[in-house]
């Protein structure tokens, strides 16, 4: 999959700003959608579409920068403070998992990176929860979160794959 080429630094800066704005909008709108299951940590994870799209189309460090800024600004705008640690740990693990998979698969089967990203996001969340509560009992949540993640991960992954298949002029 071809990376995007930028004619100037300004064009690149604008593209990155646009990506950040889009992921923040998705993140904010998603926070307003009620989730039908009362399990802490379950959500659609739609803003992962942007991270995945950027991993395919942009340089890795740019994708990482946008992800980091989205997590920080996202917790300021919508989240409560306590969720920041969960977001950052989940986001970082998901990012690494997706980047490794895309490097191995040479950007084929992008949808599966969405599934992996969602599951590794849960791994990060659960590790933080175990550290905060100092209890292995919260590990029970992992199976429930993973089940929801496989479903939502397929959707975000397919969305990112379709989005990446368009040629950008």
């Amino acid at each position, binding site marked *: 999959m071809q990376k995007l080429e930028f004619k100037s630094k300004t064009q690149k800066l604008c593209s990155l700003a646009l990506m950040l704005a889009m992921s923040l909008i998705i993140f904010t709108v998603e926070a307003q959608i009620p989730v039908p299951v*009362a*399990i*802490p940590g379950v959500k659609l994870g739609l803003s992962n579409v942007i991270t995945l799209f950027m991993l395919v189309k942009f340089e890795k460090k740019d994708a990482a920068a946008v992800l980091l800024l989205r997590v920080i600004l996202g917790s300021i705008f919508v989240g*409560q403070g*306590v*969720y920041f640690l*969960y977001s950052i740990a989940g986001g970082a693990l998901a990012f690494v998992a997706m980047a490794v998979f895309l490097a191995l*698969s040479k950007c*084929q*089967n992008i949808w*599966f990176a969405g*599934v992996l990203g969602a*599951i590794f996001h849960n791994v990060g969340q659960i590790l933080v*929860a*175990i550290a*905060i*509560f*100092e*209890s*292995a*009992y*919260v590990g*029970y*949540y992992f*199976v*429930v979160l*993973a*089940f929801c993640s*496989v*479903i939502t991960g*397929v959707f975000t992954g397919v969305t990112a794959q379709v989005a990446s298949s368009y040629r950008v002029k």
Partner: protein
Amino acid sequence: MKKSTLVLIIITATMLVTSGVGTWWVMRKNDNAKIAKVYQNDTLLYEIDLSKVEKPYTIEIKGENEKLNTIEVRNGEIGVVSASCPDKLCVNMGFAGDSYLPIICLPNDIMIVVETEGDEFDAKT
């Protein structure tokens, strides 16, 4: 369809089934609910023998910044009935005793674990 795609679809389906069975396993009704342990900020606040509760009663747990959770204890069941946090997830989770999942309130750092008799699993690691 490429072979690699097919393999990944099979892996995804396997993960879905495995975690689905796992979800059913932890969400199944816990009939042997016995000892409830209420933790706040990693400290054990209450240890309640649920089978000896005759009349339902409530406990209020206060946290910093006027955080407040009200916990109701009934025979064989324990749950959060009101919370000062905005998402109310711990309230919506219902009563433990319904499942093996511990009830947790992330904003107020409260965890309720229901242990069954003969449960060897160690809460504190």
